[in-house]
């Protein structure tokens, strides 16, 4: 029997009787499971999730759900096909043993795998002071349970809502509060909303949008303390500019934390920005050696990207979970010649203050920005980001139909600034500095980050040549 036949037999037998474990039962976990079955995997499939709910969609939580239109438990994701999996929901994975190839669960169970897909995503960054975080009326938002509680608090007509952090989710929540007729203060440490993701030039436009809609936007301030009443309900917030405001609801919207704790001791390249993997979704170990049986997808994955100097790109975008999981699943059941890369052109959307904000590429990789089309005053425009004469990102405000065009320019590293459009010229087409904050400035973390060339923030052990 030839080696080739042997190998092909192994693949056939793995597809029919192998064991695959997916840790993480959200968008990436579900789409990964579906893709595995689509790829002909008929073995045992186990999906582990710490939340008790079946996979649901998160983007509606800060919009439709908070507004009170859609109940918090009504964002369950549709299924593309049957997955015939064993679902272990409501029990978190707490450990990974790569030697015995088992995942440890919070209830003590051990689940063996032949191949593992890590899709544990992120959680919301909690309020920094534990006592204050425990006050009634203090929230974060990530899960449907969070959204349900916050929606109930908003429906109870609080006198004022304080949102700490003006990233996309903070801004969307401020928009919902105004639609509900609630007084809302947004406190942001940086000098504009959305500044980490889109820079100061576009951030200023976002600030005007907030103020036009009656948001009490306070920039360049941090919230130093929250104070409660005798019943333990939050009532006041003290800001760094010595101002105290009366509030009934506080939402900490401070970005996210990657769920990597359960991987401690497993020797994988897991760190602050997630689990490093190659462009084919295979995890790296701490020394930068690629693993054969462990794959990563979704918010927790970071992989080198060809368009961005091969820096590891960390992406909390919806379609990164969908596409990444599909590629990981395909590669889990394929041999080398058939493996595919996951090299997403990052894309996001956000609805706020009646404006549809969409983006492609990595805006923060650019250092210059130009309004390429439309009118800033009318809040319908396209802005393009450039670095060293190349287009690296674009964002549109109520101009989404043009995004594909700019996406294509980014894909082929077209020259910056882009050629002027045939019509709908903006008043000023001169590129200006994009004004991204110093990365050391503490502000809400953007959802797309280039995280350098190191596979891990833990040092690999250098092994000198043996003599």
């Amino acid at each position, binding site marked *: 029997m030839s080696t080739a036949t042997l190998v092909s037999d192994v693949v056939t037998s793995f597809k029919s009787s192998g064991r695959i474990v997916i840790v993480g039962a959200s968008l990436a976990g579900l789409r990964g499971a579906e893709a595995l079955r689509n790829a002909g995997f008929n073995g045992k499939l186990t999906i582990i999730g710490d939340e*008790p709910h*079946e996979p649901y*969609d998160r*983007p*509606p939580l800060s*919009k*439709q759900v908070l507004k009170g*239109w*859609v109940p918090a438990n*009504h*964002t*369950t*994701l*549709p*299924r*593309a*096909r*049957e*997955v*015939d*999996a064993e*679902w*272990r*929901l*409501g*029990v978190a994975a707490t450990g990974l043993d790569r030697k015995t190839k088992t995942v440890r669960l919070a209830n003590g169970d051990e689940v063996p795998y032949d191949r593992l897909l890590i899709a544990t995503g992120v959680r919301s960054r909690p309020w920094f002071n534990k006592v204050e975080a425990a006050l009634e009326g203090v929230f974060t938002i990530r899960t449907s349970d969070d959204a349900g509680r916050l929606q109930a608090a908003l429906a109870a007509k609080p006198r004022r809502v304080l949102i700490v952090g003006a990233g996309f989710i903070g801004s969307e929540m401020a928009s919902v509060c105004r639609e509900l007729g609630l007084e809302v203060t947004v406190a942001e440490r940086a000098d504009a909303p959305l500044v980490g993701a889109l820079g100061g030039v576009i951030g200023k436009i976002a600030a005007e949008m907030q103020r036009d809609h009656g948001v009490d936007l306070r920039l360049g301030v941090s919230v130093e303390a929250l104070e409660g009443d005798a019943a333990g309900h939050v009532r006041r917030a003290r800001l760094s500019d010595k101002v105290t405001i009366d509030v009934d609801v506080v939402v900490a919207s401070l970005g996210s934390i990657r769920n990597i704790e359960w991987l401690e001791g497993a020797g994988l390249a897991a760190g602050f920005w997630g689990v490093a993997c190659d*462009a084919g979704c295979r995890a790296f170990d701490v020394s930068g050696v690629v693993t054969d049986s462990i794959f990563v997808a979704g918010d927790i994955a970071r992989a080198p990207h*060809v*368009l961005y100097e091969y820096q590891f790109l960390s992406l909390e975008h*919806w*379609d990164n979970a*969908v*596409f990444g999981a*599909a*590629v990981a699943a395909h590669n889990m059941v394929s041999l080398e010649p058939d493996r*595919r*890369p*996951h*090299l997403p052109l990052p*894309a*996001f*959307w956000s*609805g706020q*203050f*009646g*404006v*549809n904000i*969409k983006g492609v590429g990595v805006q923060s990789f650019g250092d210059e920005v130009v309004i390429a089309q439309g009118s800033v005053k009318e809040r*319908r425009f396209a802005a393009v980001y450039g670095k060293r004469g190349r287009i690296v990102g674009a964002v549109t405000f*109520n101009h*989404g*139909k043009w995004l594909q065009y700019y996406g294509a320019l980014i*894909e082929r*590293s077209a020259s910056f600034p882009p050629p002027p459009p045939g019509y709908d010229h903006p008043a000023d087409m001169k590129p200006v500095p994009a004004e991204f904050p110093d990365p050391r400035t503490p502000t809400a973390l953007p959802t797309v980050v280039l995280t350098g060339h190191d596979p891990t923030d833990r040092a690999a052990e250098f092994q000198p040549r043996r003599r």
Partner: protein
Amino acid sequence: METTGRMKDSYLTTMKGAQEYNDWMIEFARINVNAAFDSAQELCGSEIAIGKGRGLNMRIVVDLNRCQGYAQCVPLAPDVLKLHGEEALMYDPNPDDSQRQRVLRAAASCPVQAIMVDMHDKGVHDKGKGTAS
């Protein structure tokens, strides 16, 4: 130059992946359209009942990266799909069963096929035991 070459290669490979995804979406489109025809038949009193009487809400998700805001879907299922401002689509991900026919028509009408409807609404039924922990 070498980098550009490599980028081109990688991108060609990626495009292949994107093409496969598109094929997948086109398959959804086909099923969506079929489902819409099926539901039309159902309205005409034929036997085909998709997920009828399950007592569950429908499940949909809209790929809002793909959505271009044409809003063809909105008048077809106005209680489920709405415009927020001029361009942003807002929708009910788990609408009531009574919206089924409207939602299937709305999904079939989308020029970029951004609306994904649960397989149960395409006549595929899960043989697995569902989501018991």
